[in-house]
């Protein structure tokens, strides 16, 4: 019976992968810091990544670009100055988004500014009919002197300030000016609860105070007057 000790040699322990004693790969040189295989792996992944970015970046940019694009400022005639009075609104329809037919039209309620309400005289006030809750079309009810929204029951007073229902701020307005006896409406702007003009916000977004930071102005809107 052979003794196990006969098989013990003085060869130091080597890990199995070292024992294989394969010849060095082609191109090997003493002191190389990276194998050929590693170089090609990194190069292939790097070039593949660049090719991927070349596809993805333009596509994402294409989809996201409209956020940063501001269209041309548009002014629309809405009738001679004599059409409008101080104590009630006249309803005007004009194109807000060109090129899409009737879907691009919007409605505003326009009057002369009123001294009794503490407004600067000689101006025109154009109140948008877009509810500040979720964007439904509000209607000016002559008898009540209020704006009322059919969707969720928002109510605004004569100046467009919220007096009831879910809306979060007064009705939006449009900039106005007079050109050759014609009243014109321009870009939309929003107002705070004190009727201070701010950049246009979407319905449902609060204005004024800290809300100016929580709902930041979008680059696609125009500066307020």
């Amino acid at each position, binding site marked *: 019976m052979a003794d196990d000790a006969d098989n013990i040699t003085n060869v130091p322990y080597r890990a199995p992968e070292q024992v294989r004693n394969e010849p060095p790969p082609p191109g090997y040189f003493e002191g190389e810091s990276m194998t050929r295989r590693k170089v090609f792996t990194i190069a292939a992944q790097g070039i593949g990544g660049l090719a991927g970015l070349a596809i993805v970046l333009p596509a994402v940019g294409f989809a996201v670009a*409209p956020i940063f694009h501001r269209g041309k400022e548009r002014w629309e005639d809405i009738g001679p100055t004599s059409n409008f009075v101080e104590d009630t609104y006249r309803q005007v329809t004009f194109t807000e*988004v060109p090129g899409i037919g009737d879907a691009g039209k919007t409605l505003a309620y326009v009057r002369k500014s009123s001294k009794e309400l503490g407004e600067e005289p000689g101006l025109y006030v154009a109140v948008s009919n877009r509810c500040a809750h979720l964007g439904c079309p509000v209607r000016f009810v002559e008898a009540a002197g209020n704006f009322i929204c059919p969707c969720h029951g928002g109510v605004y007073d004569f100046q467009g300030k919220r007096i009831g229902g879910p809306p979060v701020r007064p009705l939006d307005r449009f900039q106005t000016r007079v050109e050759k006896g014609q009243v014109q409406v321009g870009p939309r702007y929003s107002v705070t609860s004190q009727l201070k003009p701010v950049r246009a916000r979407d319905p449902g977004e609060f204005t004024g105070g800290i809300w100016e930071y929580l709902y930041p102005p979008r680059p696609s809107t125009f500066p307020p007057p």
Partner: protein
Amino acid sequence: MPKFSDLLVPAPLRKTPKPGEAGVPNQPAPQDLKTDPPRRPTDHERLGQQALEAPTEGLAWVDQRLAASGFLTGMLYRKVPKGTNWFYTLGSAALFAFIVQAVTGVFLAMFYTPSTTQAYTSIAHINNDVFLGQLVHGMHKWGASVMVILVFLHMGRTFFFGAYKYPRELNWVIGVVILILTMTMAFTGYLLPFDQRSYWASIVGININGTGPIVGPYLSDFLRAGPELGATTLSRFYAIHMLLVPGALIALIGAHLYLVVKLGTTAPPWTKVDKPRVAEPTANLDAGVSSGNGYRPGGAGTIAGVQLETTDNDGMGPA
């Protein structure tokens, strides 16, 4: 001669017919070959035989190159737990609803024009003039609601049966993404007829989305492709509705089904596992996970995360 339907059963699962069973003649008495030689089949009989075998031969030709029969056998003949009931069909029903939406959607796209000036008239054209147009449009319109309802019911089944628990959490997460994408489909599809209802519903939907602080306003601009709902909004919704989301949905449904087959389904929570004859900690703790036959249902048998091997009876009934 076996029945044709039997030929389609994959070989590993084919039962060996026993003498005396239908289709298998009883062992004939040994013949004297000299006086009573066996009759050779006529040419007609041989041709008939070959014709009957041709579909199987064709399938075999494909399978030899595709090597799919093993996978299909494992998937279609997998065991399901005892107590599997009609509630387990809600997922397949939701999948069927998705397929209906995909097929009808393709045919609607042949007649629909995603332009603000023509969208409404093209839908009217589909409903009034195109042969069966109202039916296909109706299937797509009502099928959308059906799919949303079925996805929710399927989610409820998964929740109340506890089927979201280990090791199926990832499938729950994938399912939630599928739910969100289904709602995205419903939302973007609503605008496409471009009538008063869809126009105002989309305005309200986008504005609800915009009430999210910080990013909400930018997301609204992204959805509308600008500060107001315009021509690009419609094409954008159309592209999201028929290109972007369906692709993602198909991929995720594939992953969802893969995990269902891989992990197996659960037994209903009220199912009692038969009393095991021997219950002891198994030597191979991960046997349940690695077995391709479906992970055994949670509940009884799993104690504090330790899987107990029950020698003979693992709660799996015959499929």
